[in-house]
């Protein structure tokens, strides 16, 4: 139990600090997020930053050297993130590709074949997305319907994916498809990666309630994928997908604003009936609860990294991150609006404090509670995979996929 650095860690931390100080702007009370730009601008900014990270040796800290990584223990990843968190750096572009897709490629692909893709992903040259969810299969991922039919050395893909983050700016994507509808649902899947500019792919952004368009629908009409881009055996797509998802809970789920710091700042600058909001005991109790949750998640992640660095497999206990932080985000946002009282009804930049972070948080947090495993699915995962409790009673287990009942939605 030691939260201080070993000499190696200290040296690495110094290296990271020097890199960040030279290449990025530090966060401040006044500026805790990058100023907004359009999507293209943001992607360009992220690309430039990824390139810098790569050139300085921080793009693949824990990956094997054979894939261009530094083969360091996950603790060094923690150190990098601890330091980077004080700087304004572009987020939301590479996390899925480098956190989920490429690790799956490295694990299930032929090393020589996938190496060029891995390299172009680390340098930031190519961006990846993940295509699992479908309109009729969200929580029930294995219920997906997008068909892949083999034709010689190629597969023909038809169907629709949804909730694909970043599809509109990605170069490659991974996809799970149904290659055999005549066997029970988990057994008839196959997993591929493909060029997002392949003929037959149409990408439609989804208008979210936050007024953003981070997610997409992706339509496939006779899209051809070479069999060489299959990962895992035919029919083994579910197992490959699990690799991707296992990495998801480590990659995603970092807290997003509004978090403790934001509400703490608000309440020190807002007056309630009897003085500064921060002096109100309800406010203080809530602040304490959120702080404890935030710190608890941070140290839980550190514990996971320690386990990883000892060669243990990251457990599903990392699922608690998103479960807690998504609800915390929603609570903080709604609480802040209540403190603003009548004024909270206005989301106008001229009225809403702190660039409207609470107003936006109220509209973003519902997606956080759903995307990447809903609250309910995460509780199922925790109870089944961590606590070892029985799975839900399955009516769909031994039934051929095409015979499963489906609803109107």
């Amino acid at each position, binding site marked *: 139990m030691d939260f201080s650095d070993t000499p190696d860690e200290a040296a690495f931390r110094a290296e990271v600090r020097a890199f960040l100080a030279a290449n990025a702007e530090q966060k401040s009370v006044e500026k805790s997020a990058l100023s907004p730009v359009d999507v293209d601008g943001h992607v360009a900014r992220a690309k430039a930053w990824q390139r810098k990270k790569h050139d300085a040796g921080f793009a693949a800290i824990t990956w094997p050297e054979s894939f261009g990584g530094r083969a360091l223990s996950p603790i060094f990843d923690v150190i990098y993130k601890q330091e980077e968190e004080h700087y304004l750096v572009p987020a939301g572009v590479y996390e899925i590709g480098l956190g989920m897709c490429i690790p799956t490629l490295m694990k299930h692909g032929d090393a020589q074949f996938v190496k060029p893709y891995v390299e172009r992903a680390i340098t930031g040259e190519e961006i990846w997305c993940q295509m699992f969810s479908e309109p009729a299969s969200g929580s*029930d991922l294995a*219920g997906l319907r997008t068909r892949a039919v083999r034709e010689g050395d190629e597969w023909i893909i038809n169907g629709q994916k949804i909730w694909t983050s970043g599809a509109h700016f990605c170069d490659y994507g991974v996809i799970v498809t149904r290659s055999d509808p005549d066997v029970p649902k988990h057994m008839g899947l196959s997993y591929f990666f493909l060029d997002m500019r392949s003929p037959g792919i149409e990408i439609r952004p989804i208008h979210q309630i936050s007024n953003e368009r981070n997610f997409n629908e992706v339509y496939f009409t006779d899209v051809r994928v070479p069999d060489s881009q299959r990962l895992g055996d035919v029919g083994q797509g579910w197992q490959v997908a699990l690799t991707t998802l296992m990495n998801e809970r480590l990659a995603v789920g970092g807290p997003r604003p509004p978090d403790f710091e934001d509400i703490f700042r608000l309440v020190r600058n807002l007056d*309630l*009936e009897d003085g500064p909001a921060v002096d109100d005991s309800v406010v203080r109790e809530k602040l304490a609860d959120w702080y404890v949750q935030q710190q608890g998640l941070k140290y839980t992640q550190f514990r996971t990294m320690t386990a990883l660095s000892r060669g243990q497999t990251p457990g599903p206990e990392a699922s608690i991150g998103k479960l807690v932080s998504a609800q915390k985000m929603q609570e903080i946002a709604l609480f802040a609006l*209540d403190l603003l009282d009548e004024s909270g*009804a206005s989301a106008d930049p001229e009225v809403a404090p702190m660039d409207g972070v609470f107003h936006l948080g109220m509209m973003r947090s519902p997606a956080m509670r*759903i995307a990447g495993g809903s609250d309910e699915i995460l509780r199922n995962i925790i109870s089944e995979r961590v606590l070892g409790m029985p799975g839900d009673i399955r*009516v*769909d287990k031994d039934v051929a996929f095409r015979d499963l009942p489906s609803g109107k939605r």
Partner: protein
Amino acid sequence: MNFDFSEEQDLLREQARRFLSERNALGRARRQQDAGGGFDAELWREMAELGWLGAALPEAYGGAELGYVDLCVIAEELGRANAAVPFASSVYLAAEAILRYGSETQRQQWLPKLVSGEVVGAFAAAEQPGPLTADRIRARVAAGKLNGQKSPVLDADAADLLVVLATNGQDLGLYLVETTTNGVSRKSLGMQDDSRPGAAVVFEGAAVEALTESDGWAAYEDIQNRAAILMAFEQIGGAAACLEMARDYSMERYAFGRPIGSFQAIKHKLADVYVATELARSNAYFGAWALNAGAAELPVAAAAARVAGCNAFDLASKENIQTHGGMGFTWDMDCHLYYRRAKATGLALGSARVWKDRLISRLESRNTA
């Protein structure tokens, strides 16, 4: 004793529900949300024709004099349909303020027009972020002229007439200002719920007429109490609509080969929403009686109805999105309209935290009285 609506009131409810559904009130609210505000003059005119704008007002001023319980019935249906109309601003707040604090001349002058829909009223109290307190009111009347600013003022853009809470240097009062008067300027604000539009209003020497020049804070709380009960009915209407949407969706949406509504995670979530909604409903019913009967319990009943109403609508609208999964956070589904409205109704008369404090203060003084 009788803790339910009369047959006539049930008929009124059916009629209101049918009307709002035929007029697609929900779709109209969506259009306002898409457009970032607006005023649905057509729907407003029709509501006036149905007599809703004066449902509880005396016949002497053009009202239907049905009583406040009937107005509650209409409010619940407006909430259920998520209607985008300045009903609370004009009917619960402006008209009530004039009825209770105006002179006979002022009532004669304004109430018939508010009832007919010719004039839309609104109420201007808040000035800055954070809860409103008597000593923070800066808007000031001197020699019949008002200076200051109010923000946000709901429905200010649609309003012809504002009731303004302002000080004359000695005491707070309620003042009438016409929005077309010189010295009144309005700037539309982006709202969390753009189907409940608001504006910042600046007064620079605008001519006003007093409803009351003294005890304005007490008058403000009195009007708020009455409005809180009516708003609680909008909230339970909205909460019930969310619960039905969630229930229906959960039975049509399949996962793992069965409706998601067959999973206890969803069933128990919606049971909790039901419980919150019923608690809110029961508190609101008591409030409706107290309002209608002018009972001494009104201030306590109003605070209780508001606290329960805010809680139920907040929970129902939030968990309705959650039940809808990915679809729930798309703009095209209606879930977010109610989620926004829950916050709009929860802040419009001051947040639940303010009302919880008031509730306990009122119980304390009842206890020592």
